[in-house]
């Protein structure tokens, strides 16, 4: 038996023993996800136990280094863990911007002391993080941000506001871009700060979207004091960290549409809704549009697969993240337009504020091509950085 075969067997045994039965049910709504944090209310004891057991082995982050509490697995081992978890439909023990966004940046840019301080609580789900990037007047021009951090000797004083801060009202800490040099060119005066959302001077509230209430917040800072040791990387060099993080975010958002596609294709949904005539979907025009969509969707899925495999093999082109963000979000919007069309008047149902409906999901999808860098920004990036077209 090879080492990997042995690892698989051990993992399977451990999971069998340690994953509670209720954690082997598919996630049905937001309520089934575990986000952790200081104020987290576990929906049940299984959720707590599952998080604690996984965190103890570092398997909330299987490939992070063991010195900070990570799993220390090789890529091959991590893949096996994933497969074995999928085999029993085990839920992810922890959903966390700390894991998906901040952590990788800390591992790359933070000091040793900062890693020791911030990474273990992320792994154990003890601190819930939010992201402070966008600002009300910046739009796509992220680097024009105006939230300021003034140097007050032993601390920075933060003033300004952020918008689109997901779950800011439920988070413990924020990783935040602030301006620290007002004379420098805009990309060169930005720093990357971490601070506690319980600090005096912070207010935050959720934003209502066209699709109803959302996890997005507006957040205001008024004379918030932040210790200087909470600066990550060099002063005025925060843009590099931001870019690193944005690339990750883009891939996550672009791939999102795919994850939601599930096993029922749009064509099959259409057949279920509309029915067939001579064994074909009974609306020829809609069939033609759904066909074009599914062809694109399948070619896009193959592209995501290729990009991942190329990255693993070290053949990445650098074009991947913008392409996937752009195409994935536009496809998802098309999917919802078609879902609305196949639902007809029924799809317009709104219901009460708390209902989840197709019409709300459709409206929500319109934000996909805006958040995390608009489609126009991705097109600019592809044109200039990848195709080398002149300014």
């Amino acid at each position, binding site marked *: 038996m090879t080492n990997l075969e042995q690892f698989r067997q051990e993992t399977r045994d451990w999971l069998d023993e340690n994953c509670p039965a209720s954690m082997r049910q598919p996630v049905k709504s937001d309520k089934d996800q575990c986000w952790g944090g200081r104020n987290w209310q576990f929906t049940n004891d299984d959720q707590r136990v599952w998080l604690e057991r996984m965190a103890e082995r570092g398997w909330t982050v299987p490939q992070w280094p063991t010195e900070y509490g990570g799993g220390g697995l090789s890529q091959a081992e991590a893949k096996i863990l994933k497969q074995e978890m999928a085999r029993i439909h085990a839920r992810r023990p922890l959903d966390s911007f700390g894991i998906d966004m901040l952590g990788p940046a800390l591992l790359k840019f933070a000091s040793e002391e900062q890693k020791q301080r911030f990474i273990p609580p992320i792994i154990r789900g003890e601190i819930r993080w939010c992201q402070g990037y966008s600002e009300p007047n910046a739009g796509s021009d992220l680097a024009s941000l105006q939230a300021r951090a003034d140097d007050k000797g032993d601390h920075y004083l933060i003033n300004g506001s952020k918008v689109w801060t997901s779950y800011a009202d439920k988070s413990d800490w924020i990783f935040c871009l602030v301006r620290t040099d007002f004379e420098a060119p805009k990309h060169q005066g930005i720093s990357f700060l971490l601070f506690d959302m319980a600090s005096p001077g912070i207010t935050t509230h959720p934003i209502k979207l066209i699709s109803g209430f959302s996890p997005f917040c507006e957040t205001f800072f008024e004379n918030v004091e932040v210790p200087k040791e909470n600066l990550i990387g060099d002063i005025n060099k925060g843009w590099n960290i931001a870019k690193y993080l944005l690339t990750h975010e883009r891939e996550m958002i672009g791939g999102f549409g795919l994850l939601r596609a599930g096993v029922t294709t749009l064509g099959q949904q259409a057949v279920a809704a*509309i029915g067939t005539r001579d064994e074909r979907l009974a609306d020829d025009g809609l069939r033609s549009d759904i066909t074009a969509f599914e062809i694109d969707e399948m070619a896009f899925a193959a592209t995501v697969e290729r990009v991942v495999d190329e990255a693993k093999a070290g053949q990445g082109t650098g074009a991947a993240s913008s392409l996937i963000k752009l195409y994935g979000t536009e496809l998802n919007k098309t999917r919802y337009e078609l879902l609305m069309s196949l639902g007809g008047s*029924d799809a317009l149902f709104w219901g009460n504020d708390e209902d989840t409906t197709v*019409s709300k999901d459709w409206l929500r999808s319109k934000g996909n091509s*805006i958040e995390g860098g608009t489609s126009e920004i991705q097109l600019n990036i592809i044109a200039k950085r990848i195709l080398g077209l002149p300014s």
Partner: protein
Amino acid sequence: MALILNEEQQMLRDSAKSFITESSPVSSLRERRDRGEEWSPELWQGMAEMGWAGMVIPEAYGGLEFGYVGAGLVMEECGRVLASSPLLSSSFVSASLIASLGSDEQKETLLPAIASGASIVSLAVNETDRFDPTVTALTAQQDGDEFVLNGTKRHVLDGKIANTFIVAAKTAGNADETRLFVVADDAPGITVEASRNADTRLVTSMQFDGVRVAAENLLGDAGATWPALERALDIGAVLSAAELSGLAQEAFERTLEYLKERKQFGVPVGSFQALQHRAAQLFCELELCKSAILKAGQAIDEDLPERSRLASMAKAKTAKTAKLAVNEAVQMFCGIGMTDEFDIGFFMKRAAAACQEFGDYYYHADRFARLGGY
């Protein structure tokens, strides 16, 4: 006939614009939505006083007999501010049907009341989730000099505020024959259920359980029914296109304003050529919609043989363009376009609903092709 507005039509458009902009700004829709109200009886009263409720009704029955190009202009202005009213369902579609098919007595009873706004008559034809007037499962079983109606109607416009319905039914014995009945809203056996749609309007499902209707409430002869119904639905399609056209133009103009004002990367967003070209393309599509609707409106007014094909052309073209316009608007408004605080989302929601009313792109594109012989 010149494809152009005559002087009276231009005056109508101007007066419609100033009335509706004042009495029903988009902010009033927001207020009604937040209060959970579907419509504004005051606005309806005002519209009736402007003569809009009788716009297509013959003068003999208290109307203005102004024609459908004019009705389109009113709907276009209503679309611009997202005004909600029973104009389309009652005053234009149902009134046209009654004027075509009604007996003298029916016209006397129904038309003046519609023209004055006192009566709201809604057309209960559709039974499916996707508009299809050819599907009628609701039955009317003759019983002496009465008919007994059993079945369901869905997505009935203004069903919650109508006092009268025109109901399509299959009379037993001839499954292919659709007949129309005038039914009061309080007839025993009718249940009306309403739920809120994305565009804040109420949508109605109606259940008919042994509803008894006197034979004199049959509207029109058997042979005349389908042609008149088809004409009424063409009218619905063209006027719904007119509403969408107004909505799309307004969304576009608001987007243009924003593109000119809003700065990013130190320059107005509207100076980016990629956005300029998209705006220019959308401008062209909107111009085509205007021409299409005017052409189809004239075809109704002049009763041209190509009326149905032009009506489907106008609705299909406008439905597609309106979707493009609201999608471009939200994308170009960027983040704030996604917030409820901002009005542009209302345009997107109403566009989706109006696209479905009287048939969506797919319905009319298919019909257009069929009428074109392919």
